[in-house]
């Protein structure tokens, strides 16, 4: 049981390049989330999904897009990377209902030059 798996773990991009971060969960969770973590800022929600085929904006969605075509996968895309998007990105998943916890992956460290 792998839980939440994020790929890649590290990536360096040049300004203007595009890329997709993949999040996969094997817990059959309904809800999935993408966060970015920056020093002194905590974790800020980028986008989230409450089910297959649905997505919604979080606190800091600009410059990112997401897709959830399959229940187990949640993709985060950067169409034209900017240095301000240098961050550590975390994906989380959560079972629906009650006070179920969010389960996090181990993050993707992304540097934009």
């Amino acid at each position, binding site marked *: 049981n792998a839980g*939440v798996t994020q790929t890649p773990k590290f990536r360096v991009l040049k300004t203007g390049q595009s890329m997709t971060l993949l999040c996969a969960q094997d817990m059959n969770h309904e*809800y999935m*989330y993408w*966060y970015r973590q920056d020093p*002194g*800022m*905590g*974790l*800020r*929600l980028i986008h*989230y999904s*409450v089910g297959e085929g649905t997505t*919604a904006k*979080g*606190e800091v969605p600009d410059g990112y897009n997401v897709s959830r075509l399959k229940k187990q996968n949640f993709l985060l895309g950067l169409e034209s990377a900017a240095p301000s998007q240098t961050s550590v990105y*975390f994906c*989380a998943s*959560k079972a*629906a209902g*009650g*006070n*179920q*916890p*969010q*389960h*996090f*992956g*181990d*993050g993707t460290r992304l540097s934009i030059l």
Partner: protein
Amino acid sequence: QQQVKQSPQSLIVQKGGIPIINCAYENTAFDYFPWYQQFPGKGPALLIAIRPDVSEKKEGRFTISFNKSAKQFSLHIMDSQPGDSATYFCAARGSSNTGKLIFGQGTTLQVKP
């Protein structure tokens, strides 16, 4: 705008000490308050959580104290150990329908042997 304010940003204690991390929130609609623990290179993991109708919750050496009227809550770590050295995040949930969490800025705790 940060809706959950966490302090201090960093904390150093000796083994056996009782570090205290404080959080304050503004939105009275928040209905669930978890604490997450994060080790370097890993994603956050749920440590302990409390509902606003409870004033205190203990799990092992970890205790949450909750003051609804002051809109504040805090994490106490009893008999702290070097293995407790990590970053701690408080959070607040705004909607049980989406499970979205608003995180505090984080506190880096170092417990010296």
